[in-house]
């Protein structure tokens, strides 16, 4: 597998405030990597460093094997796309005019605008001005702009924040389609459900440090409790630990036909985050 992003011992300070400390991770080609953490944990700062919008204080940051600062070069800008919660669209222009501008900046054929609009299902609305669009539609236009040059790497900063479930599903479908076409995705979110649905691997970022990293299922196994919850016909819930003593109890309830439901006690990513950091994901 090719390494697309390689970050080692990254540190970033703003004046005397430490935003990132000893952050290390790698992302392989074709992965969807989730960077999870509450607001102010350093997610956006990481994206800004990776996309050469800001400089690192220390450490090594490589994208496609080159230092992140090289991403300022025009030819490297074509290798990645970025979607942020600040759309950066021209509100007096139509959807089509906005995308046509970027199609010319990326020196793409005009047909790329239609392709991108079809991808986010907005071709019929192409003449609408940005100022007339809902938040969800704006987010889809921003996604269309981010992917119209078919980037190898896509940065998504809170892509579905403040979106309704229908629009969120549109975005998820689009991202899966892109990933299937080989695009590597770096996603930051504080929505653990989103991370569970989309990501191959996640990293928990808290106060500028990575607290855990791995595939969601691996993390659940590592941090999960070894128990199940049994609901009985008398309305009580019993927590059963893995082992012969509790297995006997479960056997007896089942023989007596008292069991109505058995639930695994698998933790969510949010539970694991709270367990590791002692704080909530807000």
């Amino acid at each position: 597998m090719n390494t697309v992003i390689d970050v080692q011992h990254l540190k970033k300070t703003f004046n005397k405030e430490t935003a990132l400390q000893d952050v290390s991770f790698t992302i392989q080609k074709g992965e969807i990597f989730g960077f999870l953490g509450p607001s102010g944990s350093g997610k956006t700062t990481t994206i800004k460093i990776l996309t050469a919008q800001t400089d690192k204080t220390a450490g090594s940051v490589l994208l496609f094997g080159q230092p992140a600062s090289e991403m300022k070069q025009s030819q490297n800008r074509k290798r990645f796309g970025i979607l942020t919660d600040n759309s950066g669209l021209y509100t007096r222009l139509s959807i089509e005019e906005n995308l046509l501008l970027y199609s010319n900046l990326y020196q793409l054929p005009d047909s790329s605008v239609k392709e991108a609009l079809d991808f986010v299902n907005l071709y019929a609305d192409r003449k609408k001005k940005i100022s007339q669009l809902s938040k969800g539609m704006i987010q889809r236009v921003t996604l269309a702009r981010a992917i119209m040059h078919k980037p190898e790497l896509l940065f998504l900063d809170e892509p579905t924040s403040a979106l309704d479930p229908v629009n969120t599903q549109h975005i998820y479908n689009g991202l899966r389609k892109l990933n299937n076409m080989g695009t590597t995705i770096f996603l930051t979110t504080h929505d653990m459900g989103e991370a569970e649905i989309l990501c191959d691997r996640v990293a928990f970022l808290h106060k500028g440090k990575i607290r855990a990293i791995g595939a969601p299922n691996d993390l659940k196994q590592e941090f999960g409790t070894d128990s199940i919850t049994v609901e009985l016909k008398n309305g009580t819930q019993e927590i059963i630990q893995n082992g012969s003593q509790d297995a006997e109890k479960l056997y007896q309830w089942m023989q007596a036909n008292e069991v109505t439901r058995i639930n695994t006690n698998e933790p969510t990513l949010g539970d694991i985050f709270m367990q590791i950091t002692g704080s909530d994901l807000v």
Partner: protein
Amino acid sequence: MNISMTRIQAILVKDYKEFSRNYAVSIMVLMPLILAFLYNQSGTSSINAYFLPINITFSMVTTYIQCCLIAEEKEKNTLRSLMLSPASLGDILIGKSLFVLIVTIVVLAMSIFLVGYTPANLFVLSIALILSAVFYIALGTLCGLFAKSIMEGSIIVLPVVFIFSFGPLALTLATAYPILKIAEWLPSTQLLLLADALEGKYSITDVIIPLITIIIWSLLSWFFTAIIYKKRMVD
């Protein structure tokens, strides 16, 4: 620097579309035209009178519009999006400046026509006017880079408008306040001195000094603009 004509043209066309739909800013082009028309109607025919609408064009059209275009791009986060595209610093600054330069040339030509000014040496004056426009565009860019919003930009640009538009008038008070002699070296004053010299018998020095002064102002302002752009547009 990596410069592409396609990208410059794309930014120019985008700015034209945005500007033509932003009436709060585009209405400013009418100010020097109305002033020029009124001056013409009042029968004034001095170089000072002719140059008031010209200097107003530079401050209220060139500087103000450029400042607002940049400030709005910052306010709406569109400048960052442009910077994350393959457009280079050169593409962005040239694209935006070219649009304001075209607007300035059109408004200047119309103002000169409306005020009834017939320059004795149109060629030399045109060069001086274009060099001045380059300087005022840099000044507008600089103001825009310091502003966080259009509102802030409109305020930041005011002292610039005052100093550069009315700077030549300060010279009339220089006998009472010698410090005001410094206003002689403002590009607006130099432009006026050049135009005045062109109307009579002039030496090569009368032409070269104002032109060089305006060029120095332009180079210095663009140098600072490039530094501030790089500094302010990286977190």
